[in-house]
């Protein structure tokens, strides 16, 4: 299963569930046609008489990003070769696992926080995928900037909201969504975090089309489900 490209991002192989798949988007011999990640921006418009609109987003909790989203991921493999063997079997199995599946497309995502003075705890909307899915934390890293000034990101196995953080650093918990930084914000600040999200999804639809011998195009649609961690 050749995939010589190791740069993170579009050319990296998608990790599904426990890292057993090797499905790359632009894999030379074996790729889905595209990955469609549709972030549903959670908001509702209210049209006022002046012809303009007030947008409202749901509040998901304290220390969360400004704009909540909810993603739908579509993975169509129109030219799926049966020869791909174990991957085909794995994808077919996924449909029947009956549980939440972890999916990391290795696409960098951005979250913005408007943090009031005093805030030092941040929650990513989804966990960072690298540590959990066995990727290199340096390659698939997290960046943390406060008003455009980056802070050193350190991954930690143990981190709570009360952990003392070294000054100038932002500590990221490997297994949860927690980030804690020091110093806390001195005034309302724009905090930008980049990371590689690990989505918890369930297959909503999966179509297998029998076209001709040896080809079974697969069409998956995953929807994001409750994040429990």
């Amino acid at each position, binding site marked *: 299963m050749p995939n010589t490209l190791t740069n993170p991002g579009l050319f990296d192989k998608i990790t599904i569930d426990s890292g057993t798949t090797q499905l790359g988007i632009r894999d030379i011999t074996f790729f889905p046609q595209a990955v469609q990640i549709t972030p549903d921006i*959670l*908001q*509702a418009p*209210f*049209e*006022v*008489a*002046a012809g*303009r*609109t*007030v*947008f*409202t*987003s*749901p*509040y*998901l909790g*304290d220390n969360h990003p*400004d704009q909540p989203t909810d993603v739908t991921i579509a993975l169509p493999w129109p030219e799926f070769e049966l020869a791909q063997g174990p991957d085909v079997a794995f994808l077919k199995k996924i449909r029947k696992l009956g549980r939440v599946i972890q999916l990391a497309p290795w696409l960098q995502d951005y979250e913005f*926080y*408007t*943090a*009031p*003075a*005093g*805030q030092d705890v941040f929650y990513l909307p989804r966990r960072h995928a690298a540590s959990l899915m066995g990727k290199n934390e340096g390659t698939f890293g997290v960046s943390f900037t406060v008003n455009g000034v980056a802070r050193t990101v350190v991954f930690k196995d143990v981190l709570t909201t009360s952990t003392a953080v070294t000054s100038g650093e932002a500590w990221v918990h490997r297994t949860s969504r927690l980030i804690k930084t020091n110093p806390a914000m001195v005034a*309302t600040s724009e905090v930008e975090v980049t990371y590689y999200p690990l989505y918890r999804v369930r297959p909503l639809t999966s179509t297998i089309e029998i076209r001709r011998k040896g080809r079974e195009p697969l069409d998956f649609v995953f929807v994001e489900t*409750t994040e429990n961690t």
Partner: protein
Amino acid sequence: MPQTGLLSVVTNVKAKVTAQLSVLTNVTTSRVDSLSANTTVTRSLAAILAEGWRVIGVKVEMDLGDGALTEIPRSELGSSIRISSSFDGFTDEVSFQLAGRKYSPFKSALIRGQQRVRMTGILLRPGLITTRKIFEGAVAIGKYFGDPPFATVSAVDSFGRHSSKQVHLNLEPGSRRTRLSVLLEILNTYGIQAGEINLGPEQGGILFKPVSVSGVTLGEFLRDFLKPTGAVYWFDQSTEKLHAQKFRPGTVYRTLDSSNMGRELEVMVPATNNANNVTATGILFAYTGPSGERTERSESVSRAVYAPLVASKRQNKADGSLTTLSLSSVSEESEVGKLIKWTNYLGGNVVSQVTEELGWYAPMAAPKKQLSSGTIQHNPDRDVYQYADGSWRSVDREEYQVIRRTRLLKYYSSAGYLTQRWDFRESFAADRQAITQTTDGVNETFLPTYMTEDGVGWINDIEKLNIWEHSITDVQGDDAKLLSYEVMNLYGLFAYPVAKQPNSYGYGPIALKTFKKSSTESVQWVGKVVTSYRALSEEEHTVTTTRQSIVGMAGTNTPIIGGTSVDPIRTVTGTRPPVEQLTDFQAAQQARSTAVDNVQVALNEAHYYYIHDEWAETNGELQVIAFEELRAQGKWPLRFSIPVDYDLRKGHTLRINRPEHGLNNEDMLAWTVETEIDLKTGANRQTLVVDHFPPELR
């Protein structure tokens, strides 16, 4: 309920969020002995409401059976929350959904028990959070659905827990309780805190009517009970206090214009056949002031064709010469008599009464004067006039004036029983005096005096209106003997008669030569009437004997008693007069008061509407009821939506500025606030009904 002065200001704003507090305290000590504080965090909210993008949430806490409030996790909370708050109902209500089989009524009592529910609204722009308690109450109605498993829950506010309870209240007639005191007592009974209560003058008015209420719910009772004050009441979720005030715009809470109102705007003008002429009727009682005293004045007038009498001759004071007069008197219809009566009541009892009788009268005058030499000459001090009937008067023409006056005073013991009554009678009379004196019973010397034509000596030469008679009645009782007495002492003009002996005075030349102890008459004791009652028992007022004895002066010509005598005791049987005791009683009278919207009448003719209200105590209160009904019929409700603002509640004043519709900064009152929030998408709206009152109805 005296409040000792500790004001605690609580804000829900999170500690790490910088916010400015504006503290507004309303102290209404003159009306209610309590302090209410209204703390508003305005700046943060205003900043958030100015944003084109904002974040909204609701935290729902519920008592899950352990007595503590526990936050319902998002995963168990349905997406839709609805809060209804309107003057159409008595309570605010929220509905929401709880997901999960654990809410099945077969598993727990969570949705069928009166579990506490609290909702906190969260409204923020990133970096700035405000939270507001938007609801505090208890589960009222729960419904469970099996598949998917979820329960819909309706909760009513803290007032709603009581609003359908039945009120039982009895007040004696004439309780003189203020509506405020009754309201506070009732709120206290149900553990409801009083907020800003303004029931208008006299602390909402004084109750004289008896109150007997049962089988009426608290919500309905308060509505009807406060109606004569014009006040509406509402329960405020954030302060958990009940406010009661007139429905009038107050401090402007927010100004709304096209940039924060939804596109749809609906104005419901009153129907052209709406009532515009409202009459409130009720049975009222004469107003009694704070002391319980009231005065009634009655007047009866007699009119007739009458020509006032005039004099035919005048006697000149200089020389006693008589001049024939030719005075004319026109015979025309005029007042010939009038009786005015002022009666002062304390409760239902007469405590004093004054009557005045007016009529045409010319006071009598003495045309002569006797000198100490015995010479009788004309009256040298005053011209006097002789009328056609030969009488001598002080003026040449009758005047319309008070000719008789009576005064009655009653005194009651501290226990409220009648102890004494005084009767005074005033009339025109002259006080007489002796014209001769004898020291030996044989020889008489003359005394200087004014004298009438028939030789009676007068101290003054004309009659005057004065108290010549009065009586004092003492009321006593002897409970042990089941006896009660009334002793009426009589006083009148009198001079004691004496035997004709040295140092006696005598009137002369009266034919009988009655001699008196004093040279002049004076008002003094002349007799008494004693009436005693013996009752059969205390319970029964049936009297076995009534004994009356009369004692008076003999040989007098006092106006009251004919002669000294002790009348034999007269024994009669009958009914003992009821003990006169201070009671509360007032006479009912039908009253009506009308309020008219002349603008509507001009537009749409008059349409009449009648309300009968038994709670009104005064005409003014009927006027309030009529006017408030007129306002209710003539108001223009506006319906529109705004994005949710967790502070806005029913009863708030909003300033609406939509100049494109001719609506320029009009202050209106929120009548209904319906809040809907979709927790999943953040979609939200508050549908408002605000009431506009045209200028004539403000």
